[in-house]
């Protein structure tokens, strides 16, 4: 897989609700489209997205082929303490890509 863009507010206040935006580079091939040779292109989609905040799962999502290529997911969480956010995307072949972002709570 490839790289992801993650947007986490730089210095949120303690207790503030922050919006986290993620954009993962991925074709999200549906498995319904024929390729140049007339054969269906095999399905290749991200099925699961998980975000943990200092080890605790704060958000997760199950995706289907109706989500666009380069899936964009935005969600909110409460800035409780400084630490690490770990984002993981798992595709239908079981491959997982992990990215982390640090958060500094004032």
């Amino acid at each position, binding site marked *: 897989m490839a790289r992801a863009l993650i947007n986490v507010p730089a210095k949120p206040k303690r207790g503030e*609700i*922050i*919006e986290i*935006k993620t954009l993962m580079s991925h074709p999200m091939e*549906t498995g*319904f*489209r024929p390729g*140049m040779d007339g054969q269906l292109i095999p399905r290749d989609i991200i099925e699961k997205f998980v975000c943990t*905040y200092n080890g*605790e*799962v*704060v*958000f*997760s*999502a*199950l*995706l*289907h*082929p*109706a*989500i*666009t*290529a380069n*899936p*964009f*997911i*935005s*969600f*909110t*969480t*409460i800035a*409780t303490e400084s630490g690490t956010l770990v984002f993981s995307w798992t595709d239908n072949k079981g491959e997982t890509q992990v990215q982390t972002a640090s958060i500094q709570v004032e």
Partner: protein
Amino acid sequence: MNTTRRQFTLLAAGASIALMTPAHATPEKMQLAIDAFTGGKPVKEGRVKLDISLLVENGNSVPLNVLVDSPMTKDNHVTRIGLFNEKNPLPDVAIFNLTPRSGRAQIATRMRLNDTQFITAIAEMSDGTFFSAKSEVIVTMPACVEE
């Protein structure tokens, strides 16, 4: 047994009708997907706000935003938000799992639309009730057609 010309014609007509049955989701299939999500429990309208364009030119990437009216406390929060469609190849779009640590029941994503259709968003509350909102989107150029 020899096939007469009449039998053959009928057979061919039947086969072509069978081939024309839609290979995509239908409102009935969407209802089945919703029932699988809710476990057959009743769904009330309201509390959910589904923000999506009324008319899009390109169905390949349609942004949408779901906001659910909920205090998001430990005892009263949104646990899941499901998105469903009527006319894409599959009725499911995505399911988002929220926690009290979400702070606000709000998600945004981008989806593919194969045709002009209704999109339904359903929220499951922590007390096991379901609320929904739906919105029709007119698509002038659908997804899933180009290379």
